[in-house]
């Protein structure tokens, strides 16, 4: 009996022990209820349904819809466009991913009974995935032939033949995209430089921060590269930027986003850059988490100061040159004050002038005399004090309007002003001395107008009747100009240009045979709603007081120009500035003298 019992007992023990341990399979155990429904943003703004092939049978409208199809999500643009096409065309349709942005120069020639439609167009540029509209390198005006046909057995119209491009009309660009300005620090890290991007309007609001962050990481538009600083090498977002929750926007970046050296300053720059770039969607708090460090919270308007355009007042101080003297124009602020920085004894024989400010100083540049006595005198002085004007030498005759580009705070060393003399661009400092020519790379035409954006880096130029944009880069002996990029506004024979906001320009030129002043975006693609028709005169000079970016207004309310010597304000129409518009009109106005050369204290 006993001999048989031992193995039996052992077997029982083994069996019992075999029963315990981690089971191979268990049933489903509900641990608890799932996380509660997150806060719904509430603004369930279902986007307007996109026009598809079946939306209309009207051929003109169908073409318009076709030219809109590429708008929206970049990666699926090709699919949307193919949706308009017959199967055979769609199969062989292999376009470049970037849509061509075109401006129709004429209505599409839809002819009843004909399938072929001719589109006359002007190429503006291409729209990249990063929202950058790159102007076309060469102006191109041409025609596209598009075949709009019906397919037996299927309703609606089809594109049966089309050029192998994704096409996007300028009107679709205006309708389907929103302009967003993102910012990069200039190479001196003194101020932010805006960079205009196009964001699809149907992009959910929640994704805007993420998109903007990706743009920032992706770097600036090509034309700004020389003037701005990219984010540190290797910067990447950690996951997506979550939707704003409780007035808080959380951004997680990897550790490379802030270099180890000078981390505090770099973090401060980064957050200002982010705050400006995300300004439109920014809630009360920005929470920035770098790598595995503690998240830092930012709030308040402190960051505004990093954008020089933020200094711009809603109402500018306006000046004209009247009877060889700089005079204030009425209905502008401080119109009882003396002319800043320019001593009274120097205020004579003035032809053109420019005044600018930093946070500490007023900068003045005055061109006086004609012919051999022509002189440019410049100076800078702390607020409220007259400046000692110094002569700038080395300029040829035929000087135009001076303009201040860079006005440093605290000291005047490093200030840069620009002037066109005899069709060439020269730079000068605030302490006189010799003017330095600023060569125009690759260009040989006569420069007829120059305008510097509020950030002091971007410039718009008119060379040989065409509009260009470029950036100023600080070099050892002054400034240099980057390769200018030609813009393609709907104007010919452009004569003058001026920044009217961070991202828009006022441009004067010929439009359908008549001189007009229109607003165009910084890339030349979009145009403002109210072109000012002038008629036959030639606009020699155009100036504007840019709007403050906080106003969200891109059209400046203060635009002035000259035709010949007569100065005009752009109000509802062009209105000449008369003697009675001066702040202190002379009791006996000398005959034949009219106010001219209007400018703003910017």
């Amino acid at each position, binding site marked *: *009996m*006993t*001999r*048989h*019992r*031992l193995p039996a*007992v*052992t077997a*029982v*023990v*083994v069996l*019992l*022990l*075999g*029963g*315990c*341990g*981690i*089971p*191979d*399979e*268990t*049933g*489903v*155990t*509900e*641990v*608890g*209820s*799932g*996380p*509660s*429904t*997150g806060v*719904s*943003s509430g603004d*369930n703004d*279902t986007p307007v349904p996109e026009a598809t092939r079946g939306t209309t049978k009207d051929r003109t409208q169908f073409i318009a819809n076709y030219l809109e199809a590429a708008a929206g*999500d970049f*990666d*699926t643009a090709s699919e949307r466009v193919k949706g308009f096409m017959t199967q055979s065309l769609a199969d062989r349709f292999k376009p470049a991913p970037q849509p061509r942005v075109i401006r129709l120069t004429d209505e599409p020639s839809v002819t009843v009974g004909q399938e072929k439609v001719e589109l006359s167009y002007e190429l503006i540029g291409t729209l990249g995935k990063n929202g950058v509209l790159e102007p076309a390198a060469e102006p191109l005006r041409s025609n596209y032939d598009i075949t709009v046909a019906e397919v037996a057995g299927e309703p609606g119209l089809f594109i049966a033949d089309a050029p192998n491009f994704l096409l996007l009309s300028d009107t679709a660009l205006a309708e389907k995209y929103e302009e967003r300005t993102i910012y990069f620090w200039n190479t001196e890290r003194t101020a932010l430089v805006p960079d205009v991007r196009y964001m699809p309007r149907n992009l*959910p609001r*929640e*994704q805007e921060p*993420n998109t903007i962050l990706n743009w920032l990481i992706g770097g600036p538009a090509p034309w700004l590269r020389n003037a701005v600083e990219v984010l540190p090498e290797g910067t990447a977002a*950690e*996951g*997506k*930027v*979550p*939707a704003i*929750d409780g007035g808080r926007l*959380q951004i997680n970046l990897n550790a490379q986003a802030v270099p180890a050296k000078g981390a505090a300053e770099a973090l401060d720059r980064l957050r200002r850059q982010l705050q400006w770039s995300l300004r439109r969607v920014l809630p009360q708090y920005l929470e920035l988490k770098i790598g595995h460090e503690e998240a830092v919270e930012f709030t308040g308007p402190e960051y505004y100061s990093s954008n020089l355009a933020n200094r711009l007042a809603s109402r500018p101080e306006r000046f004209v040159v009247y009877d060889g003297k700089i005079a204030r124009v009425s209905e502008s602020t401080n119109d009882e004050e003396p002319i800043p920085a320019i001593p009274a004894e120097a205020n004579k024989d003035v032809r053109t002038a420019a005044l600018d400010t930093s946070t500490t100083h007023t900068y003045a540049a005055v061109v006086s005399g004609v012919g051999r006595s022509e002189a440019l005198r410049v100076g800078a002085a702390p607020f409220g004090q007259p400046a000692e004007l110094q002569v700038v030498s080395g300029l040829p005759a035929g000087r135009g309007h001076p303009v201040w580009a860079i006005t440093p705070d605290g000291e005047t060393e490093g200030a840069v002003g620009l002037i066109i003399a005899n069709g060439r661009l020269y730079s000068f400092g605030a302490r006189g001395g010799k003017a330095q020519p600023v060569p125009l790379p690759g260009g040989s035409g006569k420069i007829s107008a120059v305008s510097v954006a509020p950030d002091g880096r971007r410039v718009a130029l008119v060379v040989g009747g065409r509009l260009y944009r470029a950036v100023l880069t600080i070099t050892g002996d002054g400034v240099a100009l980057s390769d200018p990029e030609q813009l393609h506004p709907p104007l010919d024979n452009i004569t003058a240009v001026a920044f009217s906001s961070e991202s828009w320009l006022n441009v004067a030129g010929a439009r359908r045979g008549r001189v007009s002043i229109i607003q165009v975006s910084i890339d030349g693609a979009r145009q403002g709603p109210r072109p000012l028709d002038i008629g036959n005169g030639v606009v020699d000079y155009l100036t504007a007081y840019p709007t403050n970016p906080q106003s969200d207004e891109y059209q400046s309310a203060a635009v002035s120009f000259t035709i010949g010597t007569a100065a005009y304000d752009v109000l509802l129409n062009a209105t000449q500035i008369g003697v009675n518009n001066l702040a202190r009109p002379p009791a006996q106005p000398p005959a034949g003298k009219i106010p001219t050369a209007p400018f703003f204290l910017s």
Partner: protein
Amino acid sequence: MPVRRTLRVVRRYWRVLVRWFQHYTAPARRAWRRSLQIRVVSLTLVASSLLVGTFGWFIADRSAEILLSRTKDEVSSSLNGKVAYAYKQLTVHPLARDPELPNTIAATVNDLFDGDPAEDGGSVISIRAANHPDLGAVTLPNVDTRQLVTPEMVRAVAESGSVAQQIRTAEIDGQTVKYLVYGSPVQTKFGHVELYYMVPLTTEDRTANQIRTTVLATGIALVFLLGVVAGLVTRLVVNPVRVAARTAQRLSAGLLDQRMKVTGEDDLALLAAAFNQMAANLQRQIVRLEEMSRLQRRFTSDVSHELRTPLTTVRMAADLIFSERDSFEPAVARSAELLQAELDRFEDLLTDLLEISRFDAGFAALDAEHTDLLPIVQRVAERLTGLADRAGVELDLRLPEAPVIAEIDPRRVERVLRNLVGNAIEHAEGKPVVITVATDEAAVAITVRDYGIGLKPGEERLVFNRFWRADPSRARQTGGTGLGLSISVEDARLHGGWLEAWGAPGEGAQFRLTLPVRAGDRLVAAPLPLIPRDRPAATGEPAEVS
């Protein structure tokens, strides 16, 4: 009928089985019955196996549970973090048809994926949307999770919207791995997607197995050692007991000088000492008793011898007086007759006493020779016919026709028979006395049956005692000495035979003398029954004196 037959067959097989079982387990059962050590060791093994098994199971079970619950806590908190992250990442998508959504899900899974796949399988993370079939499941590493994420799991997470967990064993990349699967819904603006987090339990499983193996090995070793210890301890106690038993056996066999060895001062030593003391006392007592008995027998023998000489003288004088009695006065003559009779009795008594003392002294010797028993029986019957006639008793001899030859001492057998028949006649109360002789190859039996007053229960043994009388008040009529049956028993014993008595009140009595055919053979059975066949049933316990 068939039922009964079946039952019978079953019963037969059952019996065969039981017999077979009993047969094979007989040695074990015998060992169980006989060995205290085996019993103690077996019981210790059984009890300790149960205890160690229970505790071992408890410990192994608890540790596996602790391991699992720790992992569950870790995975659960990790899952919460992952769900929170995925929730934040997916907040940017208000609509399920957002073309960017699959990218976000893929990127989120990529971000949430932790750890490189270890050799025993890394964790698997998967986001899927059961309610939005257009969104494919994104799994990292890209393995088939159908075995891991069961439809029940999907139902619990996607439909009930609860956090659920399950353990699954699945074959991933050719390796069978145990996974802890957690699932949780992740709320989004378009409903919810589900996040599944699958963590391999390989390490925990291995640890649990190691614990189990350790516990098992320890348990078995413990049980084995306990058995060994119990065996050793029992041996410590049982061995002296066995020695004591052996010594006692030897003592009882007559080896009175056997003693136990006393070692140490413990309880067992005390036992041995007490045992030795007892043995010594016993020996002393026995020797003393033997001596006393020897002296008594010597005394009896001496007295008998010493009495013979004066008795001879007295006898001669008495004979003289008896022969001259006719010349005496009748009263004196009567006295002379009485004297003669009493002297005869006295002589018989002395003869018997001497015979007894010879037996006691061990001087009696068997003078065996091949003899026919029948003439002896007939001679005894003839000699006692006179006595029988006087008592009015008929002697009925039932003898076989062939001679009954046995190796016996005819003088002693005749004395025994004379004694038995005489006793029977004396107690027959006028009824017949039957003498029967029978034989087989091994034994010869002679029974003497009477139908007189019989024997009371218990008297079957007492009849053989010296000087015993059934009724002490009864006067001695036949003049027996009271030693006849005692001598007869000694005679039978000397032959290696039996002399037994049976009797019942009112039914008479029967005495049986059984003798081996060859002297010195051991008797096993008698050719005649002790209880007479003419009695309906045997009620009394047969008395046996050997």
